[in-house]
């Protein structure tokens, strides 16, 4: 076993306290000034609400139905709006 593991077991309170301190320093450091860099990158945490927004759009998307496939097969395009006349 690597010594890191034993050390971790021997001084759990030290490790825990150290994490708290570093975290506190990090938070204090990030909190100062209006020129501070942007928060954690979008690539890392995702755009807030993106999943819900896109999910909601897919939830109400009507063009995945076979009815629309039949409509496209008649020569129409994906973005054409279904005319009311063909809907019964």
């Amino acid at each position, binding site marked *: 076993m690597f010594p890191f593991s034993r050390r971790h077991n021997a001084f759990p309170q030290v490790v825990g306290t150290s994490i708290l301190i570093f975290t506190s320093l990090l938070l204090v450091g990030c909190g100062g000034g209006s020129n501070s860099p942007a928060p954690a990158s*979008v*690539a890392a*945490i*995702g*755009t807030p609400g*993106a*999943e819900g*927004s*896109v999910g*909601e*759009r*897919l*939830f*109400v*998307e*009507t*063009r*995945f*139905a*076979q*009815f*629309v*496939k039949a409509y*496209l097969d008649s020569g129409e*395009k*994906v*973005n054409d*709006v*279904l005319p*009311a006349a063909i*809907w019964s």
Partner: protein
Amino acid sequence: MNLSETIGPMVGLPRPFAGLSMNCRACHLANEHTATQPDFMRTYTDFALRSPIPHRGDGKRTAPRNSPPLVIASLDRPDGTLFHFDGEFSTLEDLIVGTFTVRNFGWLPGQKAEAIQHIAQVMRGDNGKGPIATMFDGLPYLILLRDPILTFRTNSACRRNFVCSLDQLQTKKSSMRS
């Protein structure tokens, strides 16, 4: 399909998205009818004994059951999640694929590959100017799902290759059949 099926005296309320074909919300209702019926709020379920499905000339016009409520449906449970009243699916991913590609959306048995191809065609060709897209941000799906600004907290490779994955899935299914 232009009416929300109900039991009792309010049979035939105008269905949301009537005239635009089938979508999930057609049966998983929320506040569609509260304007005229204040106590008709739904928890993403419907009013029907059996939910209506699109006409395909096979005599079927309803699913075997009605639509399960979606509120708290995906909470973790001690023995894992099960979806639909008969436990048809164990993951939401399977549920979504298994709903978009089957009879609920008008696809007959044996048309799953065709359904996947069609969904990919719609997503590739979408210009973001349709009536549904303009209810949101008006972005085409290809931009919505590939733009690095709109990053999902899901597998990034899966996101980037979402449309390609549909093709791969179709190819895989085709090779399994042959």
